[in-house]
């Protein structure tokens, strides 16, 4: 191989033929062009004519140039030139590939796959044996060790099975097994696919690498290095999060995605690194309602555990207990204390209602106690104990408290209450005074329209001023609070319903309660005791939540904050639903440091380089084209073609040459041209399902990936083996090829045109089936579907009866869950439809496609809570039933066969 910069020749000795080119030039120059051939009747007169001078006509220079060019192209083509050639290996020994497959490899796993594939290509070209080695354990029990000597093809299969792991690499162990290997092999070609980060034992590893042979390190460019999300902190009422990158230098933007438990994106935030920034703090300012649903923050388009942060309940949700006796009766709702408290709390807290005993069984940070019938002694003691342990008790005054005070109040109360503005009183109802600066309510503005008509009064005391959080305009306390042990008791001196004041009707009430609840310590660790936290879900190497494998160890509650991420304890969620704790990588990996310096023995290479391009077919093709041109010119010059024939021939030759050229180049460039007819053939050669383009690329992608996922399941379980799904535009595309049309309903879709509607109508009339899937969270309450099909003549619908064919077309199903569950599925009423009672339209709103969707490597794209993988399985079953229903219609409900089936069952 001869290399000249980016160009190399695989067969360079052919280039010796270039010596002959000048000779060829000379020969072509002295040889006159072929004469024109003319038929001439008066030829007798031409015989024996003496020519005056004998300067033979020369081949024109441009023709000469053309021919020399053809020869040059052929010579260079045969010499097999390669653009960006793969270098061979220098050492004699095997190729040793050491792959960093810890958490930091995930973001650029694709480039690693490409690199390994290219390395293996070269190895197989040189018939070189390969040893593979990963630097992170696959499971706690699996030691890191070098593979056997393999052929490149086998190594490829082994590598395919490799995935990035969610824990850090173990360089110490890798170095040890490399040392083992060095005892047997010392002339290897070592390629280290580094993650580009400096770890604790990197030096050791690099030393060991060089013992095995000549070492090269592939290191990501600075912009491609992994990033790390640091644990979230509470900053005031908001969450703050820090994003760190390994290397400064260039400004770069990352987008944070905030997701709820269901994996739905509830917020986005862009983090912009300036050239000098390494770590940036970001405040995730979400509305309270959304903040409480926040379960996960991840960096968009950046896979891996480092870019995924799981949030647990401590940061997220403040369960609030409201003491109530029984269910509310409708007539008193607006008068009930509970109603106002619940309405005020529910936007930002999880409200639990129940008697005190029941509430205290689960951890709570705040308990609201409306004016209630006197507490029993037992209840009082339990509450007191809970408050001392760290609980926040919020009480409201009322007739009961006014009559009968107990000791669970922050201040001593006078018996009875005072009222303003009544017939027998002289004072006007009083408004709120401004809040003190040291009050938790500081900063809220007291509205003037709030008036308090009645309140309970305190005994004056020295500490009253300190304990008072809010006052009326005359200075009497309205809200008082006092610490009890680790906890606190807060008392609102008026009722939680509008009986005594209009405070509960005001917006300030909500803000006051919100501030109060924020004071709660969160779920007290001393709440329900759980000594061991069992793994619930773990993050896989790509940062997706998956079911925890059996080898994940439970963590002791007391040790949780000290737990290190390791193969036995991958990052994820631990504990049961009541006290869930998240273990994040950033609790173990505190800092990212780039690997900058390499020892002199290791050559540094980049991952991304230009792909090898074979220029041979292109050159030979060009030579062929020029040769045809030359032929044409020769014919023209000899007068064998008239001008017009020449033009016609040119077109003909071009047309003939085109398929040839395409054939020649097909190894290099994919044929872009897509002819409509080909489409039709492809759509009818196999069963193909289609989805309707929504215009939203994200939704279309989900539809596409969803149908692909369903197709994989169909192919593995049934005899239906669908081809790749097609995207159709109902307005323009032919629908007749598809048995099933999946139509996601999202916001902002434009309804089909009149023409589109008539196409759809024809499609349905001729036995087509449309599955509408309302992806919007509002489900059937949204008007999107109604708007979409306004122009379509729809049959009457019914909720799928339990004996409908759809429930037993392949699997026996009772429900039709997708990514959501619980929503009914509607089908056309059987007496309504023409096609043998088969419903041409199925309407669901469980977001099936998201549950079916798999990414390029076959992993599910979205979690499917609440049922998890079982729910996904059910979703696939629903999909299979729908497909079977679309393909076989009412076959399963065919009554004719039932006696036979029963008889067979009886045997």
């Amino acid at each position, binding site marked *: 191989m001869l290399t000249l910069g980016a160009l190399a020749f695989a067969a360079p000795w052919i280039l010796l033929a270039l010596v002959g080119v000048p000779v060829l030039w000379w020969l072509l120059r002295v040889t*006159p*062009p072929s*004469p*024109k*051939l*003319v*038929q*001439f*009747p*008066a*030829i*007798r*007169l*031409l*015989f024996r*004519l*003496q*020519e*005056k*001078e*004998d*300067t*033979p*006509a020369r081949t024109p220079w441009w023709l000469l140039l053309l021919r020399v060019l053809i020869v040059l192209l052929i010579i260079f083509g045969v010499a097999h030139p390669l653009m960006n050639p793969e270098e061979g290996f220098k050492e004699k020994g095997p190729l040793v590939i050491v792959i960093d497959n810890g958490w930091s490899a995930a973001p650029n796993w694709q480039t690693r796959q490409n690199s390994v594939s290219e390395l293996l290509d070269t190895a197989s070209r040189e018939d070189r044996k390969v040893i593979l080695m990963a630097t992170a354990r696959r499971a706690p029990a699996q030691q890191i060790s070098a593979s056997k000597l393999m052929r490149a093809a086998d190594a490829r299969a082994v590598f395919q099975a490799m995935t990035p792991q969610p824990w850090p690499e173990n360089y110490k162990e890798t170095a040890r097994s490399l040392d083992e290997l060095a005892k047997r092999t010392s002339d290897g070609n070592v390629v280290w696919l580094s993650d580009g980060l400096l770890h604790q034992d990197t030096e050791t590893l690099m030393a060991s690498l060089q013992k095995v042979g000549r070492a090269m390190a592939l290191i990501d460019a600075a912009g491609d290095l992994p990033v790390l999300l640091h644990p979230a902190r509470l900053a005031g009422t908001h969450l703050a999060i820090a994003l760190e990158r390994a290397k400064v230098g260039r400004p770069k933007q990352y987008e944070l995605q905030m997701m709820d438990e269901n994996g739905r994106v509830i917020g986005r935030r862009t983090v912009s690194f300036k050239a000098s920034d390494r770590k940036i703090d970001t405040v995730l300012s979400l509305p309270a309602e959304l903040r409480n649903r926040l379960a996960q923050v991840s960096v968009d388009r950046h896979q891996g555990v480092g870019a995924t942060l799981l949030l647990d309940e401590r940061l997220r949700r403040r369960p609030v207990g409201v003491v109530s006796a029984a269910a509310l009766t409708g007539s008193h709702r607006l008068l009930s204390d509970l109603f106002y408290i619940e309405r005020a709390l529910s936007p930002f807290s999880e409200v639990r209602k129940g008697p005190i005993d029941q509430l205290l069984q689960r951890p709570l940070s705040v308990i609201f106690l409306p004016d209630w019938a006197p507490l029993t002694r037992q209840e009082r003691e339990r509450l007191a104990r809970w408050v001392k342990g760290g609980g926040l008790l919020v009480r409201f005054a009322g007739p009961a408290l006014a009559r009968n005070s107990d000791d669970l109040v922050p201040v001593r109360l006078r018996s009875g209450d005072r009222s303003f503005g009544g017939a027998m009183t002289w004072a006007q109802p009083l408004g709120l005074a401004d809040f003190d600066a040291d009050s938790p309510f500081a900063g809220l503005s007291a509205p003037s329209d709030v008036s308090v008509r009645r309140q309970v009064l305190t005994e004056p005391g020295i500490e009253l001023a300190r304990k008072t959080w809010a006052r009326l305009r005359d200075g009497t306390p309205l809200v008082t609070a006092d610490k009890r042990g680790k906890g606190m008791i807060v008392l609102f001196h008026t009722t939680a319903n509008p009986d005594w004041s209009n405070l509960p009707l005001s917006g300030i009430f909500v803000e006051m309660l919100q501030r109060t609840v924020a004071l709660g310590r969160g779920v007290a660790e001393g709440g329900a005791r759980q000594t061991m936290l069992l793994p619930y879900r773990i993050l896989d190497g790509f940062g997706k939540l998956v079911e925890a494998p059996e080898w994940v160890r439970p963590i002791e509650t007391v040790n949780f904050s000290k737990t290190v991420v390791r193969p036995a304890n991958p990052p994820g969620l631990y504990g049961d639903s009541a006290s869930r704790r998240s273990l994040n990588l950033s609790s173990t990996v505190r800092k990212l440091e780039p690997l900058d310096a390499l020892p002199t023995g290791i050559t540094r290479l980049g991952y991304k380089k230009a792909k090898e391009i074979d220029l041979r077919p292109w050159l030979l093709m060009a030579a062929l084209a020029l040769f045809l041109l030359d032929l044409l010119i020769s014919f023209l010059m000899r007068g064998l073609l008239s001008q017009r024939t020449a033009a016609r021939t040119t077109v003909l030759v071009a047309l003939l040459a085109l398929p040839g050229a395409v054939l020649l180049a097909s190894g290099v460039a994919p044929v872009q041209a897509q002819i409509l007819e080909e489409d039709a053939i492809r759509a009818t050669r196999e069963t193909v399902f289609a989805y309707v383009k929504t215009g939203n690329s994200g939704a279309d992608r989900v539809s596409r990936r969803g149908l692909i996922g369903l197709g994989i399941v169909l192919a593995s379980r049934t005899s239906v083996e669908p081809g790749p799904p097609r995207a159709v535009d109902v307005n323009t595309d032919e629908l007749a090829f598809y048995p099933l049309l999946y139509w996601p309903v999202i916001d902002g879709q434009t309804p089909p045109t009149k023409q589109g509607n008539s196409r759809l109508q024809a499609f349905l009339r001729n036995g087509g089936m449309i599955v509408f899937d309302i992806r919007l969270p509002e489900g059937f309450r949204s008007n999107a579907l109604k708007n979409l099909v306004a122009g379509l003549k729809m049959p009457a619908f019914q909720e799928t009866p339990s004996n409908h064919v759809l429930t037993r077309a392949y699997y026996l199903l009772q429900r039709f869950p997708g990514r959501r569950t619980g929503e009914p599925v509607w089908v056309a009423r059987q007496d309504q439809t023409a096609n043998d009672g088969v419903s041409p339209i199925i309407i669901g709103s469980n977001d099936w496609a998201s549950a079916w969707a798999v990414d390029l490597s076959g992993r599910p794209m979205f979690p499917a809570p609440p049922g998890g993988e079982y729910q996904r399985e059910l979703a696939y079953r629903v999909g299979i039933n729908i497909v079977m229903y679309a393909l076989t219609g009412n076959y399963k409900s065919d009554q004719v066969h039932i006696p036979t089936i029963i008889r067979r069952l009886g045997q």
Partner: protein
Amino acid sequence: MSELASRFRIRRDAETSSSRLPPLLVAAQRVAATVEQGVHGRRRVGLGETFWQFRQYEPGDSLRSIDWRQSAKTDHIYIRETEWAAVQSVWLWRDASASMRWRSGKKIPAKRDRADLMALALASLLTRGGEQIGMLGLDERASSGSVALDRMAFSLLGNGPEQQSPNLPRFESLPRHCHLVLFGDFLTPLEEIDHRLRQFASNQISGYIVQVLDPAETSLPFDGRTRFEGLEDEGRILIKRVENVREEYVARMARQRAGLQEIARSIGWSLVSHMTDQPPEQALLALFVRIAAEV
């Protein structure tokens, strides 16, 4: 009746076998009509109709020649003798050799097509004047009328083997004092032409030569390295630069034409030259005037 039927059949055959016949005939008639208008002061050519005399039957006379009407009037049997029409007949010949099937460009007709057209147009003119016409080498005897014209058109298009067609008319004994019109390119060596024409001339036939040439044959409008090929197996010649020999060629061509003129003059024939890029009427008028002056 049967003759009429056969005549119709021939005409029909002529039409079906060659769709070119009607257009050629129409074109010839049109040319003829144009030329006839140009002939002023001469209304008809003075050839009487053919009755000459009756004479008594003698043994050996053909029974066909007995005039039954005259014989029935008297006791004798009379023979109807006609004037010997051959003296006034005009014989036509055109060169059908391969070299005539040539043209230098698409807009110019082939020499043979032009020769056919002119021959037929001349024949049309002559039959209008009541003259008898015949094709040299094809017809036994000259005839007149539209039948003769049809037959001639048919035989002009006759597809005889062209390669063997001679460049010059074969000598045939024609009636004395008849007229002979020859169409052709006359590019054969002058000695041959001289020899052949003198054979005719010695038979006291007055002749007219129409030399039909393509313009390219007089000017040699080619250039560069060119290989010329004859159309009648004369062989090939490679000229390295046609420009260099053009002048000499034109001179040779001029000598050839002058030589032909000289031959014609020496045997008392007249020569008309025609280029295929010229309209045929001009040459035809000149030709017809000369023929009419002598007939």
